[in-house]
C-alpha cells in the first residue's frame, strides 16, 4: 500500500477556528473534507502538508436548506450522495444531482463532499502518479519539475478541471461563501476560476468554502448532465457537459446555459452556443436545428488535450455527440447522459 506522509490533524469546531488553524503555522496546511481527493494526492506525494485541518466537526458546513424565496444553501460538507438523493435538490437542480450521481463510485460519494468537489485539484496523466513514477518521468511543471508533457515547450500547466459538479453549478449561477482571514466573502462560482492548472482558483487554498448558494430556478427550468468515461463507475470525466434550459409560458426557451469540464484548467462555459437556443421550441425543428448548431460550436470551442488519460481526439469527436444528447435530455426532462 502507498503510505501517507506524516502530518498533524486539527479538528476545529467552527469556521473561524478552521481558518485560524490554517494560518497559524508557517508550513503548508490543507483542509480535509471527505479526503477522497486529498488522501490519494498525499499518497502520491503531490501534497505534503504539515497540518490537516479536518472539517467534519463544523456544524455550519453541513445541511441543505431553502430560504423563503426558494434559494438553496448547501453546506460545503454535504456529501455527494446526499446531493444526489435530496428530493428538493433533485426537483430544483436536476443537472447538479445528475452530476453528483456520476462522480466516482457509491463508496466515494458517501465520503466525498460537494465542497471538496468544487475545490478539487486539477488532473493530468503526468501528474496524478506516484512519486516513483513522476521521478522516473523527470516530474512536470505542476509539481517538482520544469517541463510540461502535454504541451511540449509550454510554460503553463493545462491540467484539467475534472470536477463533475462544477459545470452543473456554473449553469445554475451558484455562488460560493468563503471564510477568509478578513471575514466572509461571497463570489459567483464563475469568478472562481483562473486558467492555470497548477492552481485553478483565484482564492488561496487557505480560504474555507463554507457553503454554496444556488438561486431559485425559473419556473419550469430543466437541466441535465452528460458525462463521457470509459467505465460505468469510478472514472473521472473524459468530457462532461451540463445544461440548463428555462422556458417561457409558450414553451419556448427563454434562457439557456451550457458548461463543459475535463478540457483544461477551468470549467468551460459555452455562452455563445447557449444563446443559439433561446427562442427555440423543443419538439420543433427550430430546437433541433439549434441543437445541431450548438453541437458544432461546442466542438469548435472545446478542444480536449492529452492531459487526462485516453485518446484526446476521440474525446473531441464526442463533444458534439454528448452536447447534442445532453440538450435533448434536458429538454425532455431526462438525463443523465451516460453510457450506462
Amino acid at each position, binding site marked *: *500500500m*502507498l*503510505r501517507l506522509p*506524516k502530518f498533524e490533524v486539527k479538528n476545529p469546531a467552527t469556521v473561524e477556528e478552521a481558518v485560524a488553524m490554517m494560518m497559524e503555522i508557517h508550513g503548508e496546511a490543507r483542509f480535509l473534507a471527505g479526503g477522497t481527493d486529498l488522501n490519494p494526492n498525499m499518497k502520491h506525494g503531490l501534497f505534503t502538508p504539515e497540518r490537516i485541518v479536518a472539517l467534519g466537526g463544523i456544524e455550519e458546513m453541513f445541511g441543505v436548506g431553502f430560504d423563503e424565496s426558494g434559494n438553496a444553501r448547501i453546506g460545503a460538507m454535504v456529501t455527494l450522495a446526499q446531493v444526489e438523493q435530496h428530493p428538493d435538490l433533485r426537483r430544483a437542480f436536476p443537472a447538479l444531482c445528475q452530476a453528483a450521481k456520476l462522480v466516482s*463510485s457509491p463508496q466515494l460519494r458517501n465520503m466525498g463532499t460537494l465542497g471538496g468537489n468544487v475545490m478539487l485539484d486539477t488532473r493530468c*496523466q503526468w501528474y496524478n*502518479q*506516484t512519486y*516513483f*513514477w513522476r*521521478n*522516473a*518521468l523527470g516530474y512536470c511543471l505542476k509539481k517538482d519539475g520544469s517541463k510540461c508533457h502535454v504541451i511540449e515547450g509550454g510554460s503553463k500547466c493545462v491540467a484539467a478541471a475534472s470536477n463533475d459538479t462544477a459545470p452543473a453549478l456554473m449553469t445554475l449561477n451558484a455562488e460560493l461563501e468563503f471564510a477568509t482571514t478578513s471575514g466572509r466573502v461571497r463570489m459567483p462560482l464563475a469568478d472562481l476560476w483562473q486558467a492555470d492548472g497548477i492552481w485553478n482558483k483565484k482564492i488561496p487554498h487557505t480560504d474555507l468554502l463554507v457553503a454554496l448558494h444556488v438561486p431559485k430556478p425559473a419556473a419550469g427550468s430543466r437541466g441535465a448532465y452528460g458525462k463521457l468515461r*470509459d*467505465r*460505468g*463507475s*469510478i*472514472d*473521472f470525466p473524459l468530457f462532461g457537459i451540463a445544461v440548463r434550459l428555462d422556458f417561457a409560458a409558450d414553451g419556448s426557451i427563454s434562457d439557456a446555459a451550457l458548461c463543459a469540464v475535463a478540457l483544461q484548467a477551468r470549467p468551460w462555459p459555452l455562452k455563445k452556443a447557449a444563446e443559439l437556443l433561446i427562442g427555440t421550441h423543443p419538439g420543433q425543428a427550430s430546437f433541433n436545428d439549434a441543437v445541431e448548431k450548438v453541437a458544432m460550436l461546442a466542438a469548435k470551442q472545446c478542444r480536449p488535450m492529452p492531459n487526462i*488519460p485516453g*485518446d484526446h*481526439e*476521440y474525446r473531441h*469527436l*464526442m463533444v458534439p*455527440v454528448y452536447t447534442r444528447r445532453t440538450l435533448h435530455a434536458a429538454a425532455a426532462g431526462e438525463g443523465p447522459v451516460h*453510457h*450506462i
Partner: protein
Amino acid sequence: MAARDQHGSEAPWDQGFRVIGKENRKVDGMAKATGEAIYTDDIQLPGMLHAKMLRSPHAHARILSIDTSKAEALPGVIGVLVGAELPVRYGVIPWTPDETALAVDKVRFIGDEVAAVAALDEDTANAAIRLIEVEYEILESILDAEKALITPEPPIHEDRKRRDNISKHVELEFGDVEAQVSSADIVVEEDYSFHSTTHAAMEPHCAVAVANSDGRLTLWSSTQITHYVHRALARVLQLDPARIRVIQPCLGGGFGGKSDPFSLEFVVAQLAIKTGRPVKMLWTREEVFYAHRGRHPMKMHYRTTAKADGTITGVDAKLLIDGGAYSSFGLVTTYYSGQLLTGPYDFPNYRFDSTRVFTNRPPNGPKRGHGSVQPRFAFEVQLDEIAQRLNIDPIEIRRRNFLGAHTETVNGQRITSNGFLECLQEVEAASDWKARHGKLPHGRGIGVAGSMYISGTNYPVYPNKMPQAGVQLKIDRSGLVTVFTGGNDIGQGSNSMVAYLVAEELGIQPSHIKVIAADTDLCPVDLGAYSSRVTFMVGNAAIDAARKLRHKLVEAVAVAWDVAQKDVRFMDGTVVDLSAAARSMTHVEAFHLAEEMFDTLGSTGAYNTPTLGGDYRGGTIGSAPAYSFTAHVAEVEVDTETGRITVHKVWAAHDCGRALNPMIVRGQIEGSTYMGAAEVVLESHDLNRFGLHAGPSLLDYRIPTAVDTPELAARIIESIDPEGPFGAKEAGEGPLHSTIPAIANAVFDAVGIRLRHLPFTPAKVLAALRAKEEQA
C-alpha cells in the same frame, strides 16, 4: 506407481455420488467471508522488519555504481541488499535463467528491481530507498516488438548464445499448407493483433521470511507455485533445499500472475538471513503492474484455406510475440501460441512460425489461457469470416470442422473426451441463435466462437520422472481425515475439490476432511496452480490415496462383521452392512477397527501423465492428458455515434468433464468470461512514449466494475473424461478464450465491421464504421 492407474469416472460406491456434483461450500468459504482467512500480509511476527524495493527509473541502462551508504546510515534501517549479493540467475523455465533477484549489471525496464532495504517500519524503508544513489549509463531502449525482431543492437540480454533480441523461435509444420492454397475454394488471409493486459488479482504480491538460528529458512509467499519457488530459493540463496520451507497462505487471486518466482521472495529471504529478523515485503499496486507477467502482446498473421462447404484444409500462422524484458515462461508461451490451436476443429494441414522477442517492457508471462488466447482470437475471427464469405452459418461451419472425441490432432495431441458439439448446441439454443443471428436490428448482434484448452500439461518445467502430483492422507481417531497436498489453492477451490474427492471415495462427509496445502515441509510435491492442472492431477492423486485407504477400512470392517467386503458400504459417515440391514457403525468406529488391524493409518497417492505428445522437438509442450472445450455466444450493441461496444450478455457453455462442484465450475466460467470481455473493450496495459507504464493503478487500468459486466449465462457440459478424477477436466482457463472472438464476431453481426486489432476502443470502432461508409 499409481501414475497411470485409471480410477474410473463413476461413483466409487454403487449408490451414486454423495458429494461430487453437489453445490457444497468451499472449505475456506466462511473464513474468507468473515475475514478470518490469513493472507500473507496478515502475518505479523515479533521483531519483523518491513522491506521496500528500489526500482529502475530507466527502461534500459547499465548500472555503473550503487552507493547505499546514506541509506544504511538512516536510523531505523537494519539491512540493505543489492544485486551483487544475489548474483545467481534463475528463471521459472530452467533452460532460460535470465533473471536475478536484483539487477546486477543492467536494468531492462522501468520498474526493474535494483536494491532493497529492510527497516523498522515501512516509512523508514521508503525514505531509505530514496537515499540509495545509483549511477546509470542509459542505453537505447527497444519498446517495440517489430524493432526488437530486426535490431540485434543493443542486446537486452548479453552473454546469450544468440546475439540478437530473439527470446525463442519455433517453427513447426504438419502436413503441407502451401499445397492447399491452389486447390482451395477460399483463402482468407489477414493480420490480427492482441494487446497487453494484466491479471489485476485483488491481492498484491507479498512475502515474509524468517531465518532461524539453526539455519532454517521459512518463506510465506503469495505464490501459485510453492515448489518452483522452493527450488529457485535454494538455487539463488545457495542453500540446501531441505533447510528451506515455503508456505503459501490464503491467496487473493493469481490468474498466472503469481506463477514465476519473484524478486521479493529472494529479497525477504536474504534480508532475513542478513538481519537475523523476520522480514516482510508487500508490493504496492503499482509494483504489481511492473512485475506484470501478463498476457503477451502478439502480432499475428493467419491464412486459412477451405473448401466451398467450409471444410478447413490448412492453417498457416506467423506470430510475433512481445516477451518484455525477461524470459519468464516464454519458451512455453512460444510453443503454446501454435500448439494449442489444433482443436476443436480438424486441421488437416497446419504450420506456425512463432517468434518471441525481448523488449524493454515489463516482462510478459502466463495469464489465464496462457499463450493461446491470442491465436484463438485471431483464428476464430478468421473462421467467422470464412463462414460469412461462404454464406454458411457460423455455428454450422464450426460443427462441420469438428475434430471429434478419442482422436488425435494434426500435431499429435491425444484427444479424449470432447463435448464441443454439445457446447455449441447449448449456446445456440440458449441464445435463440437461429432466430436472431443476422436478423437483429442494425447496431445489435450476436457472434459465436469456440475453443479448446489443456487440462494440465505433461511437461514438468524441469525434466524428471517423479509424480507430477502427490497427496498424503492421515487418519485421526476422532474420525478426521487430514489431506496433505502440495497443490496451490489460489481461490479456484482446489482445496475444496480435494476434500470432496476424498470424502466421496471414503464415504464420509466433507466436514470430516481437513486439507493442509502448499507447505513444502508438510505436503508432498505438486507442481502448482498453472496450466489448469490441479483438478486433474491433484484430484487423481487424491482419489489414488483415498482408494488405498478405503480398501483397508473396508477390509477391517468386513473382518469384524465377518461379511464379504462387497457388503460393506460407507455412506455419509455411516458404515452399513448390506447383507444385514440392521447393522451399522460410524466411520469413526471403522477407523478404530482399521487402526487395530493395520496400525497407524495413512496413505499416499500420486499422479503422472501417460506418455503424450508428438514425436518431434517440442511435441510434448501443449500435450495434456485431457482437453476442455468451450463455446461462447456474445450479444453486443454498438452505438454507431460514439463507437462504444456494450456487451449485453454472454452465453458460455464449457465442457469440464464432470463438474465436481457445479457452483465452483460456474464461478470459473463466469470469471473467465468476465475477464475475456474486459480484454476486448476495456483493459490495456500500456506504456507511454517514455516507456513508463501509462497508468499503474486500478483507476487508470480499467477493469470492469459490476455495472460494466455483461450478464453471464454459464452452462456446464459434462463429457465425463475417462482419465479425469471421476471424469473431471478443467474449468479455470478454457472458458476465457472464445469470449473474445465471440464478441468480435458479434460486432460484425451488429454493424458489419471486422475488428481484428484489440482492444476494440470506441475510437477504433468509429474509424472502422467510417471506413465502411466510405467503401459503400
